[in-house]
Protein backbone atom coordinates (compact mmCIF):
# COMPACT_ATOMS: atom_id res chain seq x y z
CA UNK A 1 0.00 0.00 0.00
CA UNK A 2 1.49 3.31 -1.06
CA UNK A 3 1.11 6.23 1.34
CA UNK A 4 1.96 9.85 0.63
CA UNK A 5 2.57 12.12 3.64
CA UNK A 6 2.70 15.88 3.18
CA UNK A 7 4.76 17.82 5.72
CA UNK A 8 6.03 21.37 6.22
CA UNK A 9 9.48 21.78 7.70
CA UNK A 10 10.74 24.85 9.53
CA UNK A 11 14.22 24.42 11.01
CA UNK A 12 13.31 21.15 12.72
CA UNK A 13 10.95 18.19 12.45
CA UNK A 14 8.00 19.41 14.50
CA UNK A 15 5.90 16.98 16.47
CA UNK A 16 3.09 17.23 13.92
CA UNK A 17 5.53 16.09 11.18
CA UNK A 18 6.50 13.08 13.28
CA UNK A 19 2.84 12.32 13.98
CA UNK A 20 1.85 12.46 10.31
CA UNK A 21 4.69 10.15 9.23
CA UNK A 22 3.93 7.72 12.08
CA UNK A 23 0.27 7.69 11.01
CA UNK A 24 1.25 6.98 7.40
CA UNK A 25 3.64 4.23 8.46
CA UNK A 26 0.68 2.41 10.03
CA UNK A 27 -0.98 2.23 6.61
CA UNK A 28 1.89 1.24 4.33
CA UNK A 29 5.13 2.32 2.70
CA UNK A 30 5.62 6.04 3.23
CA UNK A 31 6.78 8.62 0.72
CA UNK A 32 6.97 12.15 2.11
CA UNK A 33 6.42 15.23 -0.04
CA UNK A 34 7.65 18.61 1.15
CA UNK A 35 8.90 21.93 -0.22
CA UNK A 36 11.21 24.87 0.34
CA UNK A 37 14.85 25.37 1.29
CA UNK A 38 15.25 22.38 3.56
CA UNK A 39 18.66 20.94 4.23
CA UNK A 40 19.22 17.28 3.50
CA UNK A 41 19.94 16.25 7.08
CA UNK A 42 16.39 17.21 8.09
CA UNK A 43 14.97 15.36 5.10
CA UNK A 44 16.93 12.24 6.03
CA UNK A 45 15.84 12.55 9.67
CA UNK A 46 12.32 11.64 8.52
CA UNK A 47 13.66 8.14 7.95
CA UNK A 48 13.70 7.78 11.74
CA UNK A 49 9.91 7.62 11.63
CA UNK A 50 9.71 5.36 8.60
CA UNK A 51 9.80 7.61 5.52
CA UNK A 52 11.37 5.59 2.69
CA UNK A 53 11.40 8.33 0.08
CA UNK A 54 11.30 12.07 0.40
CA UNK A 55 10.13 14.13 -2.57
CA UNK A 56 11.29 17.71 -2.18
CA UNK A 57 10.16 20.62 -4.33
CA UNK A 58 12.88 23.17 -3.63
CA UNK A 59 11.67 25.49 -6.38
CA UNK A 60 8.53 26.25 -4.34
CA UNK A 61 9.70 28.61 -1.61
CA UNK A 62 6.48 30.24 -0.40
CA UNK A 63 3.65 28.66 1.52
CA UNK A 64 0.97 28.95 -1.15
CA UNK A 65 -1.87 26.53 -0.53
CA UNK A 66 -3.09 26.49 -4.11
CA UNK A 67 0.38 25.48 -5.33
CA UNK A 68 0.85 23.06 -2.44
CA UNK A 69 -2.38 21.32 -3.42
CA UNK A 70 -1.08 20.97 -6.99
CA UNK A 71 2.23 19.67 -5.70
CA UNK A 72 0.50 16.99 -3.62
CA UNK A 73 -1.74 15.96 -6.53
CA UNK A 74 1.35 15.60 -8.75
CA UNK A 75 3.06 13.54 -6.05
CA UNK A 76 -0.01 11.29 -5.83
CA UNK A 77 0.22 10.76 -9.60
CA UNK A 78 3.91 9.94 -9.35
CA UNK A 79 3.65 7.52 -6.43
CA UNK A 80 0.16 6.21 -7.20
CA UNK A 81 -0.53 6.61 -3.50
CA UNK A 82 -3.77 5.28 -2.11
CA UNK A 83 -3.57 7.40 1.04
CA UNK A 84 -2.65 11.05 1.48
CA UNK A 85 -1.84 11.97 5.09
CA UNK A 86 -1.31 15.49 6.43
CA UNK A 87 -1.55 17.35 9.72
CA UNK A 88 -4.84 19.07 10.61
CA UNK A 89 -3.06 22.39 11.16
CA UNK A 90 -3.74 25.66 9.37
CA UNK A 91 -2.01 24.51 6.19
CA UNK A 92 -3.64 21.08 6.34
CA UNK A 93 -7.10 22.61 6.67
CA UNK A 94 -6.58 24.61 3.49
CA UNK A 95 -4.76 21.97 1.47
CA UNK A 96 -6.35 18.62 2.47
CA UNK A 97 -9.88 19.36 1.19
CA UNK A 98 -8.53 20.81 -2.07
CA UNK A 99 -6.49 17.69 -2.74
CA UNK A 100 -9.48 15.48 -1.87
CA UNK A 101 -11.81 17.43 -4.16
CA UNK A 102 -9.27 17.27 -6.98
CA UNK A 103 -8.83 13.50 -6.62
CA UNK A 104 -12.52 12.83 -5.94
CA UNK A 105 -11.29 11.21 -2.74
CA UNK A 106 -13.14 10.92 0.55
CA UNK A 107 -11.57 13.18 3.16
CA UNK A 108 -11.45 12.62 6.91
CA UNK A 109 -10.26 15.66 8.78
CA UNK A 110 -8.99 15.51 12.33
CA UNK A 111 -8.35 11.78 12.70
CA UNK A 112 -7.52 10.89 16.32
CA UNK A 113 -6.49 7.25 15.82
CA UNK A 114 -5.12 4.94 13.16
CA UNK A 115 -7.77 2.80 11.43
CA UNK A 116 -8.84 -0.23 13.46
CA UNK A 117 -10.64 -2.57 11.11
CA UNK A 118 -9.32 -3.80 7.82
CA UNK A 119 -12.78 -4.82 6.61
CA UNK A 120 -13.99 -1.36 5.74
CA UNK A 121 -11.61 1.53 6.08
CA UNK A 122 -12.90 3.41 9.14
CA UNK A 123 -11.24 6.23 11.03
CA UNK A 124 -12.02 7.75 14.41
CA UNK A 125 -12.47 11.50 14.52
CA UNK A 126 -13.71 14.14 16.97
CA UNK A 127 -17.13 15.66 16.30
CA UNK A 128 -19.44 18.13 18.04
CA UNK A 129 -16.35 20.07 19.05
CA UNK A 130 -14.98 17.24 21.14
CA UNK A 131 -18.30 16.36 22.80
CA UNK A 132 -18.41 13.10 20.80
CA UNK A 133 -16.41 10.77 18.61
CA UNK A 134 -17.45 9.53 15.16
CA UNK A 135 -16.26 6.48 13.26
CA UNK A 136 -16.18 7.50 9.61
CA UNK A 137 -15.80 5.06 6.74
CA UNK A 138 -14.36 6.07 3.39
CA UNK A 139 -15.69 4.50 0.18
CA UNK A 140 -13.44 6.04 -2.44
CA UNK A 141 -10.34 4.28 -3.72
CA UNK A 142 -8.08 7.18 -2.70
CA UNK A 143 -8.38 8.60 0.79
CA UNK A 144 -7.18 11.88 2.28
CA UNK A 145 -6.73 11.94 6.06
CA UNK A 146 -5.62 14.83 8.21
CA UNK A 147 -4.36 13.99 11.69
CA UNK A 148 -5.37 16.07 14.70
CA UNK A 149 -2.22 17.34 16.45
CA UNK A 150 -1.35 15.55 19.73
CA UNK A 151 -3.44 12.47 18.85
CA UNK A 152 -0.91 9.94 17.57
CA UNK A 153 2.25 9.38 19.59
CA UNK A 154 5.23 9.59 17.17
CA UNK A 155 7.06 6.28 16.93
CA UNK A 156 10.66 5.80 15.84
CA UNK A 157 11.01 3.15 13.17
CA UNK A 158 14.23 3.78 11.31
CA UNK A 159 14.49 2.96 7.60
CA UNK A 160 16.89 3.83 4.79
CA UNK A 161 15.70 7.08 3.19
CA UNK A 162 16.37 8.48 -0.25
CA UNK A 163 15.83 12.07 -1.32
CA UNK A 164 14.19 12.70 -4.68
CA UNK A 165 14.29 16.19 -6.22
CA UNK A 166 10.71 16.94 -7.25
CA UNK A 167 10.82 20.39 -8.82
CA UNK A 168 7.52 20.30 -10.67
CA UNK A 169 6.26 23.33 -12.55
CA UNK A 170 3.31 24.51 -10.46
CA UNK A 171 2.63 27.87 -12.14
CA UNK A 172 1.95 31.09 -10.27
CA UNK A 173 -0.12 31.42 -7.12
CA UNK A 174 -2.82 34.08 -7.10
CA UNK A 175 -2.55 34.95 -3.42
CA UNK A 176 0.32 37.30 -2.53
CA UNK A 177 1.54 37.41 1.05
CA UNK A 178 2.50 41.01 1.78
CA UNK A 179 3.33 40.71 5.47
CA UNK A 180 3.73 38.17 8.27
CA UNK A 181 3.13 39.26 11.83
CA UNK A 182 4.88 36.53 13.82
CA UNK A 183 3.28 35.08 16.94
CA UNK A 184 6.59 34.65 18.70
CA UNK A 185 8.61 31.58 19.42
CA UNK A 186 6.18 29.83 21.75
CA UNK A 187 4.68 26.46 20.92
CA UNK A 188 1.38 26.99 19.07
CA UNK A 189 -1.64 25.97 21.19
CA UNK A 190 -2.84 23.02 19.09
CA UNK A 191 0.61 21.43 19.35
CA UNK A 192 1.31 22.30 22.97
CA UNK A 193 1.63 19.39 25.41
CA UNK A 194 1.24 21.60 28.46
CA UNK A 195 -1.28 24.46 28.61
CA UNK A 196 -2.05 26.95 31.40
CA UNK A 197 -5.32 28.80 30.97
CA UNK A 198 -7.26 31.40 32.91
CA UNK A 199 -10.60 33.14 32.81
CA UNK A 200 -12.65 35.91 34.35
CA UNK A 201 -11.69 34.78 37.83
CA UNK A 202 -8.37 36.57 37.26
CA UNK A 203 -10.31 39.87 37.44
CA UNK A 204 -8.22 41.84 34.95
CA UNK A 205 -5.51 41.62 32.27
CA UNK A 206 -2.96 43.17 34.64
CA UNK A 207 -3.12 39.99 36.76
CA UNK A 208 -1.93 37.64 34.03
CA UNK A 209 1.64 37.66 35.35
CA UNK A 210 0.88 34.74 37.69
CA UNK A 211 -0.50 32.73 34.75
CA UNK A 212 2.56 33.48 32.64
CA UNK A 213 4.89 32.64 35.52
CA UNK A 214 3.26 29.24 35.95
CA UNK A 215 3.36 28.62 32.20
CA UNK A 216 7.04 29.54 32.17
CA UNK A 217 7.90 27.22 35.03
CA UNK A 218 6.18 24.34 33.23
CA UNK A 219 7.32 25.27 29.73
CA UNK A 220 3.62 25.54 28.87
CA UNK A 221 1.66 27.65 26.38
CA UNK A 222 -0.92 30.12 27.74
CA UNK A 223 -4.60 30.08 26.83
CA UNK A 224 -7.82 31.73 28.01
CA UNK A 225 -11.59 31.40 28.11
CA UNK A 226 -13.92 33.09 25.64
CA UNK A 227 -15.18 36.02 27.80
CA UNK A 228 -11.60 37.02 28.50
CA UNK A 229 -10.75 37.12 24.78
CA UNK A 230 -14.02 38.90 23.96
CA UNK A 231 -13.39 41.75 26.40
CA UNK A 232 -9.87 42.10 25.08
CA UNK A 233 -7.91 41.00 28.16
CA UNK A 234 -6.14 38.40 26.04
CA UNK A 235 -5.58 37.95 22.27
CA UNK A 236 -8.17 35.94 20.33
CA UNK A 237 -5.66 33.28 19.31
CA UNK A 238 -5.46 32.21 22.97
CA UNK A 239 -9.19 31.47 23.21
CA UNK A 240 -9.80 27.75 23.67
CA UNK A 241 -13.28 26.26 23.52
CA UNK A 242 -16.02 25.38 21.11
CA UNK A 243 -15.71 28.56 19.05
CA UNK A 244 -12.01 29.01 19.68
CA UNK A 245 -9.11 26.59 19.39
CA UNK A 246 -9.73 22.95 20.30
CA UNK A 247 -6.74 21.47 22.10
CA UNK A 248 -5.69 18.06 23.43
CA UNK A 249 -2.58 18.62 25.55
CA UNK A 250 -1.23 16.19 28.12
CA UNK A 251 -1.90 18.72 30.87
CA UNK A 252 -4.48 21.51 30.97
CA UNK A 253 -4.44 23.78 34.01
CA UNK A 254 -7.51 26.04 34.24
CA UNK A 255 -7.68 28.84 36.80
CA UNK A 256 -10.72 31.02 37.35
CA UNK A 257 -12.73 29.31 34.60
CA UNK A 258 -16.14 27.96 35.63
CA UNK A 259 -16.21 25.32 32.88
CA UNK A 260 -19.23 26.14 30.70
CA UNK A 261 -20.13 23.36 28.27
CA UNK A 262 -18.71 25.39 25.36
CA UNK A 263 -15.35 25.70 27.10
CA UNK A 264 -15.25 22.01 28.02
CA UNK A 265 -15.93 21.08 24.39
CA UNK A 266 -12.63 22.60 23.34
CA UNK A 267 -10.50 21.08 26.09
CA UNK A 268 -11.96 17.71 27.07
CA UNK A 269 -9.50 15.92 24.82
CA UNK A 270 -6.82 16.87 27.36
CA UNK A 271 -5.23 13.91 29.07
CA UNK A 272 -5.12 15.48 32.52
CA UNK A 273 -7.13 18.49 33.68
CA UNK A 274 -6.32 20.53 36.79
CA UNK A 275 -8.97 23.03 37.88
CA UNK A 276 -8.36 25.88 40.29
CA UNK A 277 -11.50 27.73 41.39
CA UNK A 278 -12.82 29.45 44.50
CA UNK A 279 -16.31 28.07 43.83
CA UNK A 280 -16.59 24.40 44.86
CA UNK A 281 -19.76 24.18 42.71
CA UNK A 282 -17.95 25.21 39.50
CA UNK A 283 -19.02 22.69 36.82
CA UNK A 284 -15.41 22.37 35.67
CA UNK A 285 -14.59 20.18 38.70
CA UNK A 286 -16.80 17.45 37.20
CA UNK A 287 -14.48 17.29 34.19
CA UNK A 288 -11.28 17.60 36.21
CA UNK A 289 -8.75 15.00 37.31
CA UNK A 290 -7.36 17.21 40.05
CA UNK A 291 -9.23 20.03 41.72
CA UNK A 292 -7.97 22.82 43.93
CA UNK A 293 -10.68 24.81 45.71
CA UNK A 294 -8.93 28.06 46.35
CA UNK A 295 -8.00 31.52 45.18
CA UNK A 296 -5.98 31.54 41.97
CA UNK A 297 -4.02 34.53 43.27
CA UNK A 298 -2.64 32.37 46.06
CA UNK A 299 -2.70 28.93 44.44
CA UNK A 300 -0.95 29.75 41.15
CA UNK A 301 2.18 31.36 42.67
CA UNK A 302 2.37 28.48 45.15
CA UNK A 303 2.10 25.96 42.32
CA UNK A 304 4.77 27.85 40.35
CA UNK A 305 7.11 27.68 43.33
CA UNK A 306 6.46 23.94 43.76
CA UNK A 307 7.11 23.30 40.07
CA UNK A 308 10.35 25.29 40.23
CA UNK A 309 11.46 23.31 43.29
CA UNK A 310 10.58 20.08 41.57
CA UNK A 311 12.48 21.06 38.42
CA UNK A 312 15.60 22.10 40.29
CA UNK A 313 15.57 18.81 42.21
CA UNK A 314 15.45 16.75 38.99
Amino acid at each position, binding site marked *: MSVLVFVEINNKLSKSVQEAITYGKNLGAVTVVTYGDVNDSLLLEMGNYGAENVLVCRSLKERN*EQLLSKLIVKAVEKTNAEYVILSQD*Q*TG*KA*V*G*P*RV*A*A*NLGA*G*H*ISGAIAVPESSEEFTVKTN*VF*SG*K*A*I*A*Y*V*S*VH*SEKKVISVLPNSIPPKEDKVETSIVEFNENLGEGK*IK*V*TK*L*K*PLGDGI*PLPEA*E*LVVSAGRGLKGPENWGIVEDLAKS*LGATTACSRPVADIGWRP*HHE*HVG*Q*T*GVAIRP*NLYVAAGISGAI*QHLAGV*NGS*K*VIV*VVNTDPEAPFFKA*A*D*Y*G*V*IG*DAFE*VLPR*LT*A*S*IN*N*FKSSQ
Partner: protein
Amino acid sequence: MKILVCISKVPDTTSKINFTDNDTKFDENGVQYIVNPYDEWYALVRALELIESNGGTVTTITIGSSKDDPTIRKALAIGANDAVRIDAEPTDSFFVSKQIAEYAKNENYDIIMTGKETIDYNGAQVGAMISELVDMPFVSLATKLDVEGTKATLERDVQAGVEVVEVELPIVLSAAKGMAEQRIPNMRGIMAARSKPLKVVPPFEQKELTTVVKFELPNPKTGCKYIDPENMDELVELLHNESKVI
Protein backbone atom coordinates in the same frame (compact mmCIF):
# COMPACT_ATOMS: atom_id res chain seq x y z
CA MET B 1 -20.51 43.12 -5.65
CA LYS B 2 -22.13 39.69 -5.43
CA ILE B 3 -21.42 37.65 -2.32
CA LEU B 4 -22.53 34.10 -1.58
CA VAL B 5 -22.51 33.04 2.09
CA CYS B 6 -22.76 29.34 2.91
CA ILE B 7 -25.02 28.79 5.91
CA SER B 8 -25.43 25.58 7.83
CA LYS B 9 -27.68 24.68 10.75
CA VAL B 10 -26.07 23.17 13.85
CA PRO B 11 -27.20 22.20 17.35
CA ASP B 12 -27.04 25.09 19.79
CA THR B 13 -23.67 25.28 21.58
CA THR B 14 -25.28 24.36 24.93
CA SER B 15 -26.85 21.15 23.52
CA LYS B 16 -26.27 17.88 25.28
CA ILE B 17 -25.08 15.47 22.61
CA ASN B 18 -26.80 12.07 22.46
CA PHE B 19 -27.29 9.40 19.82
CA THR B 20 -30.07 6.98 18.82
CA ASP B 21 -30.51 3.93 16.59
CA ASN B 22 -27.61 2.03 18.12
CA ASP B 23 -25.42 5.13 18.21
CA THR B 24 -25.65 5.65 14.45
CA LYS B 25 -27.82 8.80 14.44
CA PHE B 26 -27.65 12.13 16.20
CA ASP B 27 -30.54 12.43 18.67
CA GLU B 28 -32.47 15.56 17.67
CA ASN B 29 -34.80 15.23 20.63
CA GLY B 30 -34.94 18.54 22.49
CA VAL B 31 -32.16 20.05 20.39
CA GLN B 32 -32.41 23.69 19.38
CA TYR B 33 -30.86 24.52 16.03
CA ILE B 34 -28.97 27.70 15.30
CA VAL B 35 -27.06 29.11 12.36
CA ASN B 36 -23.48 27.83 12.63
CA PRO B 37 -21.78 30.64 14.62
CA TYR B 38 -18.82 30.96 12.22
CA ASP B 39 -21.19 31.28 9.26
CA GLU B 40 -23.35 33.84 11.01
CA TRP B 41 -21.19 35.98 13.27
CA TYR B 42 -18.24 36.29 10.97
CA ALA B 43 -19.02 35.39 7.33
CA LEU B 44 -22.56 36.73 7.00
CA VAL B 45 -22.06 39.88 9.05
CA ARG B 46 -18.86 40.86 7.23
CA ALA B 47 -20.57 40.22 3.88
CA LEU B 48 -23.39 42.57 4.91
CA GLU B 49 -20.93 45.24 6.04
CA LEU B 50 -19.17 45.05 2.67
CA ILE B 51 -22.33 45.56 0.62
CA GLU B 52 -23.45 48.33 2.97
CA SER B 53 -20.31 50.27 2.10
CA ASN B 54 -19.68 49.08 -1.48
CA GLY B 55 -23.13 48.17 -2.77
CA GLY B 56 -24.18 44.73 -3.97
CA THR B 57 -26.11 41.71 -2.81
CA VAL B 58 -25.65 38.92 -0.29
CA THR B 59 -27.23 35.55 -1.06
CA THR B 60 -27.11 32.65 1.38
CA ILE B 61 -26.95 29.03 0.33
CA THR B 62 -27.85 26.00 2.43
CA ILE B 63 -28.01 22.29 1.72
CA GLY B 64 -30.98 20.84 3.55
CA SER B 65 -34.66 20.10 3.83
CA SER B 66 -37.52 22.43 4.74
CA LYS B 67 -36.48 21.80 8.37
CA ASP B 68 -33.62 24.20 7.65
CA ASP B 69 -35.94 27.06 6.67
CA PRO B 70 -36.10 28.66 10.16
CA THR B 71 -32.30 29.02 10.27
CA ILE B 72 -32.31 30.35 6.72
CA ARG B 73 -34.95 32.93 7.70
CA LYS B 74 -32.73 33.95 10.62
CA ALA B 75 -29.92 34.73 8.17
CA LEU B 76 -32.37 36.73 6.06
CA ALA B 77 -33.53 38.57 9.19
CA ILE B 78 -29.95 39.59 9.92
CA GLY B 79 -29.89 41.15 6.47
CA ALA B 80 -29.13 38.80 3.56
CA ASN B 81 -31.03 39.77 0.39
CA ASP B 82 -32.16 36.32 -0.65
CA ALA B 83 -31.53 32.65 -0.02
CA VAL B 84 -31.03 29.43 -1.94
CA ARG B 85 -31.72 26.01 -0.48
CA ILE B 86 -30.47 22.93 -2.28
CA ASP B 87 -33.15 20.40 -1.45
CA ALA B 88 -31.14 17.45 -0.15
CA GLU B 89 -29.90 15.95 3.09
CA PRO B 90 -26.22 16.83 3.34
CA THR B 91 -24.32 13.54 3.36
CA ASP B 92 -20.65 14.50 3.47
CA SER B 93 -18.44 17.54 2.88
CA PHE B 94 -17.77 16.71 -0.73
CA PHE B 95 -21.50 16.38 -1.44
CA VAL B 96 -22.15 19.79 0.12
CA SER B 97 -19.21 21.42 -1.67
CA LYS B 98 -20.29 19.94 -4.99
CA GLN B 99 -23.83 21.34 -4.62
CA ILE B 100 -22.53 24.82 -3.82
CA ALA B 101 -19.93 24.74 -6.59
CA GLU B 102 -22.49 23.59 -9.17
CA TYR B 103 -24.89 26.34 -8.15
CA ALA B 104 -22.21 29.04 -7.96
CA LYS B 105 -20.44 28.35 -11.21
CA ASN B 106 -22.98 30.20 -13.37
CA GLU B 107 -23.65 33.03 -10.93
CA ASN B 108 -20.38 34.99 -11.08
CA TYR B 109 -19.97 35.64 -7.38
CA ASP B 110 -17.11 37.94 -6.38
CA ILE B 111 -16.75 36.29 -2.98
CA ILE B 112 -17.94 32.92 -1.68
CA MET B 113 -17.74 32.75 2.12
CA THR B 114 -18.01 29.90 4.60
CA GLY B 115 -17.42 29.78 8.34
CA LYS B 116 -14.05 28.26 9.28
CA GLU B 117 -15.85 25.05 10.32
CA THR B 118 -19.24 23.91 11.55
CA ILE B 119 -19.46 23.26 15.27
CA ASP B 120 -21.08 19.84 14.74
CA TYR B 121 -18.78 17.94 12.38
CA ASN B 122 -15.79 20.34 12.64
CA GLY B 123 -14.61 19.19 9.23
CA ALA B 124 -13.32 22.57 8.02
CA GLN B 125 -13.47 21.14 4.51
CA VAL B 126 -16.22 22.83 2.53
CA GLY B 127 -14.60 26.17 1.68
CA ALA B 128 -11.40 24.63 0.36
CA MET B 129 -13.32 21.98 -1.59
CA ILE B 130 -15.52 24.61 -3.25
CA SER B 131 -12.44 26.60 -4.26
CA GLU B 132 -10.95 23.56 -5.95
CA LEU B 133 -14.21 22.72 -7.73
CA VAL B 134 -14.78 26.27 -9.03
CA ASP B 135 -11.02 26.87 -9.54
CA MET B 136 -10.76 30.01 -7.44
CA PRO B 137 -8.13 31.08 -4.89
CA PHE B 138 -8.99 30.13 -1.30
CA VAL B 139 -8.06 32.11 1.78
CA SER B 140 -8.52 29.95 4.86
CA LEU B 141 -9.18 31.09 8.43
CA ALA B 142 -9.52 34.78 7.51
CA THR B 143 -9.86 37.14 10.46
CA LYS B 144 -10.08 40.38 8.45
CA LEU B 145 -11.38 41.22 4.98
CA ASP B 146 -11.35 44.50 3.09
CA VAL B 147 -12.23 45.03 -0.55
CA GLU B 148 -11.15 47.89 -2.79
CA GLY B 149 -12.31 47.67 -6.37
CA THR B 150 -11.43 44.15 -7.47
CA LYS B 151 -8.68 43.65 -4.89
CA ALA B 152 -9.23 41.97 -1.54
CA THR B 153 -6.87 42.37 1.40
CA LEU B 154 -7.16 39.78 4.14
CA GLU B 155 -5.53 38.72 7.35
CA ARG B 156 -5.48 35.11 8.31
CA ASP B 157 -4.07 32.80 10.94
CA VAL B 158 -1.18 30.58 9.93
CA GLN B 159 1.09 28.48 12.15
CA ALA B 160 3.77 31.15 12.24
CA GLY B 161 1.43 34.02 13.10
CA VAL B 162 -0.86 36.31 11.14
CA GLU B 163 -0.44 36.68 7.40
CA VAL B 164 -1.58 39.71 5.43
CA VAL B 165 -2.48 38.67 1.88
CA GLU B 166 -3.70 40.37 -1.28
CA VAL B 167 -5.69 38.67 -3.98
CA GLU B 168 -7.78 39.67 -6.99
CA LEU B 169 -11.47 38.77 -6.80
CA PRO B 170 -13.16 36.37 -7.20
CA ILE B 171 -12.16 34.35 -4.14
CA VAL B 172 -13.45 31.74 -1.72
CA LEU B 173 -12.70 32.28 1.95
CA SER B 174 -13.42 30.75 5.34
CA ALA B 175 -14.16 33.23 8.11
CA ALA B 176 -12.78 32.96 11.64
CA LYS B 177 -13.20 34.96 14.81
CA GLY B 178 -12.29 38.62 14.48
CA MET B 179 -13.80 39.27 11.05
CA ALA B 180 -16.96 40.92 12.39
CA GLU B 181 -19.14 41.24 15.46
CA GLN B 182 -22.35 39.32 16.01
CA ARG B 183 -25.55 41.15 14.95
CA ILE B 184 -28.88 40.56 16.62
CA PRO B 185 -31.74 40.81 14.09
CA ASN B 186 -34.27 43.55 14.89
CA MET B 187 -38.04 43.31 14.52
CA ARG B 188 -38.02 45.00 11.12
CA GLY B 189 -35.46 42.52 9.88
CA ILE B 190 -37.47 39.59 11.19
CA MET B 191 -40.64 40.89 9.49
CA ALA B 192 -38.82 41.59 6.22
CA ALA B 193 -37.24 38.11 6.25
CA ARG B 194 -40.67 36.49 5.87
CA SER B 195 -41.13 37.88 2.39
CA LYS B 196 -37.55 37.67 1.13
CA PRO B 197 -37.03 35.16 -1.70
CA LEU B 198 -35.99 31.62 -0.69
CA LYS B 199 -35.33 29.62 -3.82
CA VAL B 200 -35.44 25.81 -3.56
CA VAL B 201 -33.20 24.06 -6.07
CA PRO B 202 -33.00 20.31 -6.81
CA PRO B 203 -29.65 18.72 -5.92
CA PHE B 204 -26.87 17.72 -8.27
CA GLU B 205 -26.26 14.00 -8.16
CA GLN B 206 -23.19 12.99 -6.20
CA LYS B 207 -22.50 9.73 -4.42
CA GLU B 208 -21.36 9.62 -0.85
CA LEU B 209 -17.60 9.34 -0.29
CA THR B 210 -17.60 9.08 3.49
CA THR B 211 -20.20 7.83 6.01
CA VAL B 212 -20.40 8.06 9.77
CA VAL B 213 -20.96 4.47 10.81
CA LYS B 214 -21.05 4.97 14.56
CA PHE B 215 -20.93 7.67 17.22
CA GLU B 216 -19.49 7.40 20.68
CA LEU B 217 -19.40 9.65 23.73
CA PRO B 218 -15.99 10.20 25.32
CA ASN B 219 -15.32 8.31 28.54
CA PRO B 220 -16.48 10.40 31.47
CA LYS B 221 -13.87 11.37 34.04
CA THR B 222 -13.80 8.96 36.95
CA GLY B 223 -13.88 11.68 39.54
CA CYS B 224 -11.91 14.65 40.65
CA LYS B 225 -9.20 14.27 43.27
CA TYR B 226 -9.13 17.35 45.48
CA ILE B 227 -5.83 18.78 46.64
CA ASP B 228 -5.32 21.06 49.63
CA PRO B 229 -4.72 24.57 48.24
CA GLU B 230 -1.87 24.97 50.74
CA ASN B 231 -0.12 21.87 49.47
CA MET B 232 0.90 22.35 45.86
CA ASP B 233 3.88 20.04 46.32
CA GLU B 234 1.35 17.22 46.50
CA LEU B 235 -0.20 18.28 43.17
CA VAL B 236 3.22 18.39 41.53
CA GLU B 237 4.00 14.95 42.96
CA LEU B 238 0.73 13.54 41.53
CA LEU B 239 1.29 15.13 38.13
CA HIS B 240 4.76 13.61 38.04
CA ASN B 241 4.25 10.15 39.57
CA GLU B 242 0.55 9.36 39.13
CA SER B 243 -0.46 10.92 35.82
CA LYS B 244 3.10 11.30 34.49
CA VAL B 245 2.47 14.48 32.53
CA ILE B 246 5.38 16.48 33.91
